């Protein structure tokens, strides 16, 4: 998003009318400003990303642990932000990579990641066309509009599946971006998405 600073004086009102809602700084601008010594901007990054990070964390490790882990995630981000190259990758992808790693570390410490939860190399050959759009019939989609049911079903899915679904549908990330976060090839992510939807369908029935 382009950032336009509000001019002082009489032009301000006119400027606000011409460019409404355009004063929010981009991640790059906030990070550059932080690197220039304006540490206050880190608070804006926390405010911007804490809901998404909390949601993903709660989905992976459970809501009761999420707050503590979110704090750890932001401390890692704060410690490494000066080394982060905003030109090379997106901040959103980077913060989710840190979130995923922190969650996995927590689960490993808790020894609650089972073998079935980490699915590695199985994927379907996506050179063949798979009609994603027809995976769930309308009736089942309607059932999923019940958030209590969807929450329950998501909690029953494996970590990889629910991470893919959360990032794709809640954070509106592409499969390529999710691949970067989970450090997996595009086809694996597509496969996980496909299988996750099938799993949801099976569980609804």
């Amino acid at each position, binding site marked *: 998003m382009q950032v336009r600073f509000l001019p002082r004086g009489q032009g301000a009102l006119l400027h606000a009318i011409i460019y409404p809602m355009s004063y929010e700084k981009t991640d790059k601008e906030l990070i550059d400003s932080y690197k220039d010594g304006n540490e206050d901007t880190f608070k804006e990054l926390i405010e911007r990303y804490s809901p998404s990070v909390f949601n993903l964390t709660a989905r992976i490790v459970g809501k009761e642990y*999420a707050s503590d882990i979110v704090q750890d995630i932001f401390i890692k981000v704060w410690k490494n932000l000066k080394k982060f190259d905003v030109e090379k990758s997106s901040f959103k992808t980077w913060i989710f990579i840190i979130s995923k790693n922190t969650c996995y570390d927590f689960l490993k410490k808790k020894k609650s990641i089972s073998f079935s939860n980490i699915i590695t190399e199985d994927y379907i050959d996506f050179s063949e066309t798979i009609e994603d759009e027809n995976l769930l019939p309308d009736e089942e989609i309607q059932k999923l509009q019940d958030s209590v049911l969807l929450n329950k079903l998501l909690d029953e899915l494996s970590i990889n599946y629910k991470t893919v679904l959360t990032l794709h549908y809640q954070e509106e990330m592409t499969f390529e971006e999710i691949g970067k976060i989970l450090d997996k090839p595009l086809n694996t992510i597509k496969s996980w998405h496909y299988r996750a939807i099938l799993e949801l369908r099976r569980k609804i029935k």
Partner: protein
Amino acid sequence: MSMNKELAKAFKKTCYMANEDLPLVVWKRIIKQKKHALKVKLGIFSFLGTTSLVGFIFMFKTLLSDLSQSGFYQYLSMAFSNKDILVTYWKEFAFSITESLPMASTLYSLTLIFIFFLCLRYAMKQIIKGQLTSSFLQARPV
């Protein structure tokens, strides 16, 4: 409507919501970590600074006794008492006064005083940063 849009709609409704004060809690923890790091650095620099200052005092005493033993003071007083000789034989004088300098103790003393000032500088930096960090949290809550 397509499956993707419908699913996105359903998923958006199931987002886990964090407590409203979570950003503030995160920020406070960062400030706490920052303060802790500053305290550790301040401790290290204070220790190094004090050690180098004490070392410098001892080394300076050694330097003074070395200077008196090497005849440095005699050469120095000659420079103030007889300026004509100094002008005529300045090359010889410079060579003699340099030769009479106790190199090792001079070098150690300068190194120690350099370390002391460096530590003082970094310690002051940590104190200023610490004050800024404290005022930061008080003045501007999230």
